[in-house]
């Protein structure tokens, strides 16, 4: 097992060299890139990444540009998790046969997806990855709405929210269904680690990500990502809105081990 990067405080953390680049086309104040940076900086190991279709994928891979300084793949809306699972299976097979080109390095396998690509569209694929026990991590950038296509409700939209397909007004108070409890569903796959994180609590997040990367087996992380465009707040308020959500326990931070 490779060594876990030591991050005691923020000053120490700030010596990290980012592997995610600017001039991506995410909205100003978007929490997606804050989450991605905190995840990528939490480790010094080689990374094999994927992204399912969503804001993150659309904005970081605008041909002819890429914003990723690690191996990164995008295939379809639903199969970001299985792309990484396939790479992980190939890594294991080559390792068994002793055909790895750099056998001393232990890459980490991480797939990013939005809540639409995880809770709804890619649900079956993620369930398969978790059930087969790939040594990978799936991170949901949960902004609780289909932000890339104009704010339609997803199954992650919490009760009372006003999405464009469930608007609040004279007739209705907004979304009528509760948020899908994805962490419980994933924990029911008997995976070694499932957790909820938020970018404003960076230390908690880095601790959980490092634990998730260190354990053997599939890991599911649900990260709250405040969306300036669809939640309709000023870009500079991303952190205070995230603080409100986590401190009021609208988005509780917890982990389920084994």
């Amino acid at each position, binding site marked *: 097992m490779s060594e876990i990067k030591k991050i005691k405080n923020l000053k120490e953390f700030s010596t990290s*060299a980012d592997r995610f680049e600017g001039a*991506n086309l995410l909205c100003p*104040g978007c929490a997606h890139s804050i989450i991605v940076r905190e995840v990528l900086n939490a480790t010094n190991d080689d990374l094999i990444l994927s992204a399912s279709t969503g804001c993150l994928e659309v904005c970081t891979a605008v*041909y002819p540009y890429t914003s990723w300084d690690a191996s990164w793949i995008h295939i379809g809306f639903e199969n970001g998790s299985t792309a990484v699972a396939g790479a992980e299976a190939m890594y294991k097979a080559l390792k068994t046969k002793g055909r790895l080109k750099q056998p001393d390095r232990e890459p980490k396998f991480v797939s990013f997806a939005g809540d639409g690509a995880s809770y709804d569209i890619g649900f079956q694929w993620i369930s398969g990855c978790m059930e087969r026990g790939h040594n990978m991590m799936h991170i949901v950038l949960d902004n609780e709405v289909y932000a890339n296509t104009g704010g339609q409700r997803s199954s992650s939209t919490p009760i009372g929210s006003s999405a464009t397909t469930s608007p609040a007004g004279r007739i209705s108070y907004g979304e009528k269904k509760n948020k899908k409890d994805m962490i419980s569903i994933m924990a029911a796959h008997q995976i070694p680690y499932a957790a909820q994180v938020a970018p404003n609590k960076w230390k908690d997040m880095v601790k959980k990500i490092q634990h998730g990367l260190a354990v053997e087996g599939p890991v599911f992380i649900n990260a709250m990502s405040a969306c300036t465009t669809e939640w309709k707040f000023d870009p*500079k308020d991303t952190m205070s809105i995230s603080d409100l959500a986590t401190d009021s326990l609208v988005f509780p931070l917890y982990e389920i081990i084994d």
Partner: protein
Amino acid sequence: MANKGWDEFEIGAMLRSFNGPVSDVALTHQEDRDYSENNSFTASVADWRIEKPVFNKDYCIDCQFCWIYCPDISIISRDKKMVGVDMDHCKGCGICVEVCPTNPKSLLMYSEQTDEEEALAAWPSKETGEK
């Protein structure tokens, strides 16, 4: 990258982030990397900005809150010290100013045309609790 007709289709593309082979990207800072022209680091989103952050190092305590919460990798920190703002990649969201804990703030937003020297000369003084 020739233009394609309406019924032609690009099956897939592979872009390289760097020129030539690299190792240990995680330990190499941006100024030491050999970026390829396909890396978005070589592009700029400076024209998105309406307001720009101005950094006053006299008041900075190097807490690095701006570094961790910057969505665009625009706060340059080296050796645990805040060095400055990367104006090619800053989109002017203002998160760094919001999270800055010093009094007065060591980062403030000014309109894009403001002269940086003038802004620094007229920096607001410390706020007291009195009203």
